[in-house]
């Protein structure tokens, strides 16, 4: 459970949250579906 974020890496990590936030703005669920899948997939990225 160590590590740190570089700004560009953080930008990648923020993408799912941005998609979910976008869904709240545009009142559509497709960004939510992509965003939650992306968040879960990214969370496993350290095991590649």
């Amino acid at each position, binding site marked *: 459970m160590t590590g740190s974020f570089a700004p560009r890496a953080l930008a990648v990590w923020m993408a*799912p949250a941005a998609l979910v936030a976008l869904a709240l703005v545009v009142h559509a669920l497709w960004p939510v579906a992509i965003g939650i*899948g992306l968040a879960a*997939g990214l969370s496993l990225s350290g095991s590649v």
Partner: protein
Amino acid sequence: MLLPSGKRHGRDRRVVAAYLGGTLAGATATAVLAWLLSGFVAPFGATARSAVLVAGALFAWGVKHGPLADRVQLPEARRQIPLETFGRGLVPGAWKFGFEMGTGMRTYVPSFAPYVLILTLLVARPTLGQALLVAAGFGLGRAVPLMIYLRPEERLSLTRDFLQGADHRFAQTAAGLVVLLGALLLV
């Protein structure tokens, strides 16, 4: 890593494309199966399904990152993807390796977010289109590190920073919370 360090070659792009195709296919297989099984929760209302989602997410967080760690184990395949996967060459092997990684069920699961995601597909009752988009996001997320590695500049440092971030407790918890928030929107 699938890609050796050093100068990038055209073959590397084919490896990454094959890996991405595999992760997308594997994630789609899991998502469709979970979507089919979600029919069993049809009799339950949105409130009950939301409560199950929140309770399940809290439990998974507690097991993976919280006070239940080392006391309870969530189901996961505690093994590495075998080297035999690459027996027919790097590009076909990358596809198969990606498929196994994309299913989310064939190797270690160090984060609680994928558990929340599968619970979402089972309990939130998304449409088939939404389930397929969830799979696309998951497959893409699993392939991002290799895609980053193809960047011509600073690929080593950027990949290292990204992968270190993946082990960060804050990142794991934030990812799971994003999944839970999104799941509650889908219910």
